[in-house]
């Protein structure tokens, strides 16, 4: 199903593929030799001719299609793919009839005929299914006869199968079909052509830079191709269809983790945004103000919005990931407020593992930025961690800039230092945005700045706009279900709840799921997303699931809910490709480490050092090294004390990443390359 992959993987995840090769910093990749470039990089100018050829023939089809379905009464219909029913001004009753007709038609025809054509003919025939089908098929036949020149473009092998399937359905379900023998062939031709055309145009729309070296799987498709792609999504892949049905109209969900050194003002910044956006009632805020004043920590009043436990408030630090949500113009943003304290990095990893993008908060106060950024500060470790956890879009909020009187110098100094570091960490310059702001005064958070000192030199977006501009990654909804559990608690009513993030696939109410690694079957009794109950949840969602059929004792944090058929691998030993960070002592065989995998923390041993690799090229430098020093890249075998669920990185990215920590310091990040059966 090469075509599906084309569609599913468009735009976003391809960037991941390439950059996530650890050890490839941005600099590394930019100095390729010309021959390499030729081999791996797509050059738009080189292939111009080929593409123009494509475009030509594509136009051909397009025109024909337009001729065929042109109807003055419904202008604009023909260019649309998705069923824009609203624009048709139909009554509810008619709409329902139209939908049922469409469903029938699709059953018979598959996706070979665009929806708009279907709608048109259904309306023309006053919702008479048989007549409409007749018309469509007849039209097609005549059209196909007109186009013998299409024949040589041979369909792909997979297409044959599809075509054959269609043949069966056509003959069995619709006896009115006039000519069945010509049908599948002609269809196949059209399909085969579509594949190549979408391929060509999608790769042409890419810049050579973000092209994946492995395969030119389509990224952002051209607008006029979009039509076809969405259609495929709807009618072919069931989960995809469900996803678009459920979520098509809603705003995209974006999960953002807020990271930074302790006392950088993460919680305060977020609290302030929530307050300014009106997510916190005036009364609550007043209460917080009074109470915080009482214990002499008035500056913490906004932080209290997110720090809820008494412990956190008394100590004035975040200890566990706090969460809240707000909406921007185009997105529904769920923030995960990570603790900055070094002791709570395990919690921070849990939070970051669920996030799509990150917001790094740095304290601009003289001395504070330095202490957070220099060795031992969390700014570095957090940034490295989120990068290793797969976050590649980052906003940097240069906080507390009011204390330096909005000095541009200070802002530039911090920006310069961070830019160099973040580049080294593997963030692309284009994916990192710096915003000056102040959490306590609320400057430049949701509104453009009003401070004259800041206005003098800053005219960029405010923080909210930056968040709004993040790209939402593609959700792998059609893969088998994987959901990592990060919380287990007793809910109201029967059963108990687990909360976590769906990494892959969809979860419906009533589904049977397998709780791994214990491999117990459970049934999903209820689902709720952000405290709103729902019937279905998709990849990328944070859900709490009410389970029945298993005991609460047998489920713990770090377990995976998996599809019962396509199960998640359970193992105690796996091979990983490590990138070693700055370590005090080298890693040897038998090194005991704590392994962080999603929200799971487990003690593990590095049992074998297999190979030391070149940091930039990935070539083998030394087999079976004695030890791994600073900033090395290596292939190792890791053995875990208890069985855990991991996936190969190439299969499921989120479940293929591990962090290794020793005595409170992150020493390495790894990608699972192989899983041994134990």
């Amino acid at each position: 199903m090469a075509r599906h992959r084309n569609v599913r993987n468009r735009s976003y995840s391809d960037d991941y593929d390439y950059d996530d090769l650890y050890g490839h910093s941005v600099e590394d990749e930019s100095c390729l030799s010309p021959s390499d470039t030729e081999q791996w990089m797509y050059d738009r100018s080189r292939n111009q001719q080929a593409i123009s050829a494509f475009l030509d023939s594509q136009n051909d089809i397009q025109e024909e299609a337009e001729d065929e379905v042109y109807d003055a009464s419904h202008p604009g219909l023909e260019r649309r793919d998705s069923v824009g029913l609203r624009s048709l001004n139909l009554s509810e009753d008619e709409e329902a009839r139209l939908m049922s007709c469409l469903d029938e038609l699709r059953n018979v025809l598959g996706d070979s005929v665009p929806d708009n054509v279907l709608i048109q003919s259904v309306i023309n025939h006053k919702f008479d299914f048989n007549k409409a089908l007749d018309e469509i098929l007849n039209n097609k036949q005549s059209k196909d006869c007109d186009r013998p020149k299409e024949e040589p473009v041979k369909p792909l092998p997979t297409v044959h199968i599809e075509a054959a399937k269609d043949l069966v359905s056509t003959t069995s379900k619709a006896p009115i079909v006039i000519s069945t023998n010509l049908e599948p062939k002609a269809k196949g031709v059209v399909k085969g052509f579509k594949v190549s055309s979408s391929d060509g145009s999608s790769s042409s729309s890419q810049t050579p830079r973000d092209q994946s070296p492995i395969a030119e799987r389509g990224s952002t498709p051209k607008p006029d191709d979009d039509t076809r792609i969405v259609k495929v999504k709807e009618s072919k892949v069931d989960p995809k269809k469900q996803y678009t049905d459920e979520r098509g109209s809603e705003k995209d969900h974006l999960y953002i983790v807020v990271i930074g050194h302790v006392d950088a003002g993460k919680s305060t910044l977020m609290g302030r945004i929530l307050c300014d956006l009106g997510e916190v009632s005036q009364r609550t805020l007043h209460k917080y103000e009074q109470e915080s004043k009482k214990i002499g920590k008035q500056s913490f009043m906004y932080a209290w919005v997110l720090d809820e436990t008494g412990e956190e408030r008394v100590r004035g630090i975040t200890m566990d990931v706090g969460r809240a949500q707000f909406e921007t113009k185009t997105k529904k943003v769920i923030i995960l407020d990570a603790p900055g304290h070094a002791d709570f990095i395990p919690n921070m990893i849990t939070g970051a593992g669920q996030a799509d993008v990150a917001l790094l908060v740095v304290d601009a106060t003289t001395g504070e930025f330095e202490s957070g950024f220099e060795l031992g500060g969390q700014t570095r470790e957090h940034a490295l961690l989120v990068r290793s956890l797969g976050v590649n879009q980052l906003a940097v909020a240069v906080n507390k800039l009011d204390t330096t009187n909005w000095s541009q110098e200070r802002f530039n100094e911090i920006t310069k230092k961070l830019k160099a570091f973040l580049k080294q960490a593997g963030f692309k310059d284009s994916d990192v945005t710096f915003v000056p702001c102040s959490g306590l005064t609320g400057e430049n958070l949701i509104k453009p700045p009003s401070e004259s000192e800041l206005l003098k030199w800053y005219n960029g977006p405010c923080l909210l706009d930056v968040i709004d501009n993040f790209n939402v990654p593609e959700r792998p909804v059609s893969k088998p279900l994987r959901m990592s559990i990060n919380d287990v608690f007793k809910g109201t009513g029967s059963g108990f709840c687990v909360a976590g993030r769906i990494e892959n696939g969809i979860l419906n109410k009533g589904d049977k799921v397998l709780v791994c690694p214990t491999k117990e079957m459970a049934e999903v009794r209820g689902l709720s997303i952000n405290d709103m109950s729902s019937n279905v949840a998709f990849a990328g969602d944070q859900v709490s699931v009410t389970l029945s059929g298993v005991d609460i004792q047998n489920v713990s944090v770090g377990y995976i809910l998996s599809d019962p058929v396509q199960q998640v691998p359970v193992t105690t030993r796996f091979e990983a490709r490590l990138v070693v960070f700055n370590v005090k002592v080298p890693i040897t065989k038998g090194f005991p480490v704590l392994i962080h995998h999603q929200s799971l923390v487990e003690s593990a041993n590095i049992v074998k050092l297999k190979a030391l690799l070149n940091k930039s090229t990935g070539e083998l430098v030394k087999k079976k090294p004695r030890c791994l020093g600073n900033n090395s890249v290596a292939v190792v075998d890791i053995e875990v004390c208890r069985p855990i669920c991991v996936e190969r990185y190439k299969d499921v990215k989120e479940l293929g990443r591990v962090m290794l920590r020793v005595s409170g310091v992150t020493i390495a990040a790894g990608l699972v390359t192989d899983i041994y059966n134990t």
Partner: protein
Amino acid sequence: MKLVHKNIEKDGCGSISLIPEESEDMWHAYNLIAEGDAVTASTVRKVQTESSTGSSTSNRVRTTLTIRVETIDFDTQACVLRLKGRNIVENQYVKMGAYHTLDLELNRKFILQKILWDSVALERVDMACDPAQNADVAAVVMQEGLAHICLITPSMTLVRSKIDMTIPRKRKGFTQQHEKGLNKFYDAVMQGILRHVEFSVVKCVIIASPGFVKDQFFEYMMQQAVKTDNKLLIDNKSKFLLVKASSGFKHSLKEVLQEPAVITKISDTKAASEVKLLESFYTMLQLEPAKAFYGKKHVEKANEAMAIEILMISDKLFRCQDVLKRKEYVTLVDSVRENGGDVRIFSSMHVSGEQLDQLTGIAAILRFPMPELEDSDAEDNSDVDSDSD
């Protein structure tokens, strides 16, 4: 352990009689006794007697037996040593060659006969009989939802109890569930301490955790002690020592044992010094990789050059079944000593020893760099890997 009698010939064969006094001595005995040794100890055996009329009666008799050891079985948690073998001295109840399993018991003498008492074995006897070395420390390493209650003796770290609980996270409006779970967890840890820590023996109780868990727990425990009027806890309040650890897993004990506050309290335990030594090995590996080596091949080569300053070797290697292999290791140890090097035998029951075991069980810090060893890596390491896997 009490040494009662020692009779060793010039050629190294001979016998030693010992009386184990505490459970730790069983560990020493386990390390002393090898397959093929003869052990004499008092034991209980069920004996069947047949009368002249043909009716048989069976009764249990206490008798002293000498067996040739065939299998050694040691339960680390209960500190029980079982020796199985054939009887080699006939007596009225047991025939020659009959199998018997000896359970070594505390405060009962046993005689151990060896064909060869090597230096390592003799050293072990000395160490076991040294009365100065007993300072027991209890340590609780914990994090939210996970705790290990351990007992650290000079040559062993015993995990007495592991508490693993899922604590619900804090979530909007549900913070009480988190706090309830936390209290339940603290209560379990406290019960564990009361059950497993003998305050009369233990010198101090270390509570180690990341963040504020240790403080919260200590506070909770003392509150509960006052509430339930638990004299034991209140009286021993001064024995508790709160230190920082990075996690609640067992190997973070290593960090705990490196804390200066802990070192002053337990300076004479072997555990702390072993941790320190292993740490210095790793530092050397980082700074001067040509002066730190591990794996038998490398270490042997370094020894040939008389380069070894400190040899770290796990006692697991001396317990190996293969007599020849043991001999090799003993020669290595002897020759390092001869050359003026320091030999430390790590207890594989400590965290550091566990790590050394993983690291092929043998490692050395050299006096001078030997980069040529490093270069010959490729072929050597394959051997090292194969014999350790």
